[in-house]
Each structure stands twice: as C-alpha cells, then as structure tokens.
C-alpha cells in the first residue's frame, strides 16, 4: 500500500469479509476489505449510514469474528478483545452505576493498579476532557456531550496503543459537535495515539484526519483514500479544506 511506508502498520485488515446469517437470510456487510493504519496516524473512515462501520470496528476490536480474512494488531492476529485497543462508542456505553471517576479508572482498576495511582491518572484525563468537578456525578446526570467526554477519558485512561472511535459525536447537536472536535484534536496533539475514527460527516473527517478512507455502500469496501495535508488546527473555510471537501463530494456523487 502506498501510504504504509517502511514501518510495519500497527493495524492491518487483510481481505476482511463479514456476512450475517439469520434463519436463511444472509446479509453481506463487508466484502474483502483491506486497510492498514500506521502508528500515531489519525485515520478517519468515512462512509454512509448502515454500511457496516460498527461491524468493522467490532472486528478490529476482537469483539466479533470476521467471516473470512484477518486483522492484525502489532503484527499479531486479533482473536479476542485486547485492552491495548481502546473503544469509544457511538451510543454512550458508560457504566450507569458508576460515577464519572469510577468509569474513567475502570480499566486500571481491572488491572489492579493501586488506588492512589489510578485515581491520579483518571483525574488527569478527566481534567483533560474538561470535566473537572464532575468526578462524583453519575452518567444519568450528564449531557450527551459530557457523556462522550467521559467515554473518551475512560478509553485514554486505559493506556491503549490505538483508539477506536465509532461515530462518537454522531448523536450530538452541531454546536456541541464542533466543540468536541476541537477537544479531540487538542487531546490528540497532547497525547499522541493511533486513532481510527468513524464518521459519516465530511467536515468532521477533514478537520480531524491525517488520512481519510472513503467506504462504499453495503457490502462495504474501500472506495478511495485521501491524504489530508493541512496544518492543524484546521480552518473549516480555508481554501485547502474546501478543496478536499469538494473532492470528496464529487467522489460520493459519481457513484450515485
């Protein structure tokens, strides 16, 4: 692949296919999809609704098996969930019975990290996502945007090598969405990690991505890849931004 350079990719999907079978009906969601992600790269998968983005994410995460094909993480085959991969969900997947603090330090707690150490660590990420003062609140009391911030802090706090983000801002209003995009961009520049980010929003993709992977409709495959070589933080109305926007719109329209 032209972008993978000399270093081995941290994530590699090889010919991944997925077919759901339900009592005679079968639905082919992913078809021979290949994809690779380099370390510290911010890759955005941009695809239409219901095309199998969440399914692909679950397969990369090891939560669901592929029908055929393989996924490699740091050179090893993914077969079960690996805490080195952190997941941020489309809908809030916070533990409703735990406070913000206990949600965020959940991962370290499962690894039996001493209380003081993991509290400090969790506090660092709570501060980073801008939720200082809400440590004791239960998720039910938080707004949608705040919940997603907790989800991001929780994923970061487990020290993953890769963050998988599945339309984390899909359910937020436009205003909150912009501020969350800023937040993610800021966090990413301070805590460099590999990010695989899913969205169906073109602007969001251009604002965040080093590289955008355009996905086709179901059964899903990679349509095209676009490198976004604009200085960060990006300006939604700069010429470079609008140019890429136009290119992507064209690509999506051509096949319609």
């Amino acid at each position, binding site marked *: 692949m032209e972008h993978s350079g000399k270093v081995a990719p941290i994530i590699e999907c090889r010919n991944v296919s997925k077919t759901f079978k339900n009592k005679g009906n079968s639905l082919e969601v992913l078809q021979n999809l290949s994809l690779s992600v380099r370390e510290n790269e911010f890759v955005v998968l941009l695809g239409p609704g219901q095309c199998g983005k969440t399914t692909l994410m679950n397969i990369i995460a090891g*939560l669901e098996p592929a029908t055929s094909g393989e996924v490699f993480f740091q050179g090893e085959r993914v077969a079960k969930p690996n805490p080195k991969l952190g997941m941020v969900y489309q809908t809030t997947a916070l*533990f409703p019975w735990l406070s913000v603090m206990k949600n965020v330090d959940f991962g370290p707690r499962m690894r039996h990290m001493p209380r003081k150490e993991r509290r400090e660590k969790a506090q660092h990420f709570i501060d980073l996502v801008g939720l200082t003062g809400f440590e004791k609140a239960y998720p039910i009391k938080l707004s949608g945007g705040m919940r997603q911030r907790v989800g991001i802090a929780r994923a970061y706090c487990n020290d993953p090598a890769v963050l998988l983000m599945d339309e984390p801002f899909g359910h937020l209003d436009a205003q909150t969405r912009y501020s969350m995009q800023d937040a993610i961009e800021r966090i990413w520049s301070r805590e460099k990690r590999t990010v695989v980010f899913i969205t169906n929003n073109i602007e969001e993709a251009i604002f965040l991505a080093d590289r955008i992977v355009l996905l086709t409709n179901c059964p899903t495959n990679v349509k095209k890849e676009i490198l976004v070589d604009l200085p960060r933080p990006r300006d939604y109305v700069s010429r470079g931004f609008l140019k890429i926007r136009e290119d992507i719109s064209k690509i999506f329209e051509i096949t319609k």
Partner: protein
Amino acid sequence: MNRKKKRSFAGSRTEALVYGILSLVILLAVWHLVSLGGRIGKFFPSPFLVIRDFANAFVHAIGRNTMLEHIFFSLRRVLVGFGLGVVVGIPLGLVMACSKAGRAFFMPLFSIVRPIPGLAWIPLAILWFGLGEQSKYFLICMTALVGITMQTFFGALYADPVLIGAARMLGAGKFQLFVHIILPSAIPNIFAGLQGSFAGAWCAVIAAEMIRSDEGTGWIIFNGMNYANTAQVIVGMVAIGLVGLIASTLLKALERRLCAWNIQGK
C-alpha cells in the same frame, strides 16, 4: 415517576395532604355512622373502639402476647422464610442467567414450580414439616422464591451486551465481568423482585398463622373471628397493613440508596 404522577393528580403537596386528610375523615365518619345502626352495628365496631383497642393491645395482651410481641413473631417468620428465599433465589437466578449448563438443568424444574401459587404448598408444607414453625418458613420461602429468582434471572440475562463488550475492551476478565457488570445490571430487577416477594411473604405468614399458631398478627385476626370479636379482627388487619407499609417503605429507601444511579433528576 411515581412522584410526578401524584403531583399532576393532586396539584401540589399541600393539596395532596388536604385531600388525604379529607378522605380519611370521611371514611371514619361513614364508618362511625354505620356502626351506630342496630343489626349491622353488632359486627361493625365503631372506628374509635378499634383505635382504642389497637392502642390498648400494646399494653394489654391479646391472648398471651402484646401487639409488639405478635408483630415480632410474624416478622420473625417472614424474615426467616423470606431470607431463605433470598439466599436460594438470587444465586439460583444468577446461575441460570450466567451458565448455559445451569440454565439447562434448573430451568425445566423451575418452569414447573413457577406457576404454582405459594399458598398451594400449604398441604405439603403441613404433611412434610408438621404444624410448627418449619412449615411456616417453608410456605413463606416458596412464596418468595419464585419472584426473586425470576427477577434476578432476567436482570442478569439482559445485561447490556455493549457494556459487557466495553468492559472486556477495558481488560475485565470473566469473573470481573460478573462482579462489575452483570451483578450491578441485575440490581434494579432484584429490588423489584424483593419488593414484590416481600408483599407475597407477608400474605403467606397470615395464611400460615391462620392454619395453626398461638401468636402473630394472623392469629389475632383468626382468634378474633372465632370469638366473634370484630374489633380484634380489625385491629389485626390494621397491624398487618401498618407493618407491610413500613417494610415496603424501608425497602424503597434502601433501593434509593443503592440505585441512586438509576434515578433521574435530583
């Protein structure tokens, strides 16, 4: 939710209080008037007589025990029987939800027992355990067991798979999943089961005491009936109602404590 409903019905809190007092006053007035009528009045003691007898019962014994002692006997029976139901029912529900083998083994047995109302066990309880305390414990336990087991089972079975996935991604092992995700997911259901089953157990103790006993709130009622002492019957009923109310209030308070995360608003 409950509170909201009450509000929209009666407007405000003070309004609700006024209506509550009003309905109570009307009840007592009508009751008192009926008790004045000759023939009906004979089996219809005045509410003031009942209140007096009720208060008296705390000082002067009915049968061999005062009211508090009667309540204590009934409560002890319920707590032992209900406690057994909890100790058996919660683990049973969890095993059926979490282990395929456990479900395959217990589910058929349980499906047979489930539709049998607790009180249908009375004859077997007597034949197996005699007329003493044990048969009462057994009866109460059987009444409470079914609800507790079912609620625990469904609560644990329908733990959100996304949350389970999220916990696995964060490194939780099998046992940790059970402790940190499945169990807390089931807690609201378990509480619903406890509340329903407690009401059932409180019914069962009355039935058990009516069959045979020398004390307890159920005994007060039955003894009153045998001696055509209507006031005593009603005193027993009031005691049962009050204890049931206090117990369910306590359970609700405990639930509010333990499930604060599940309650919207302040």
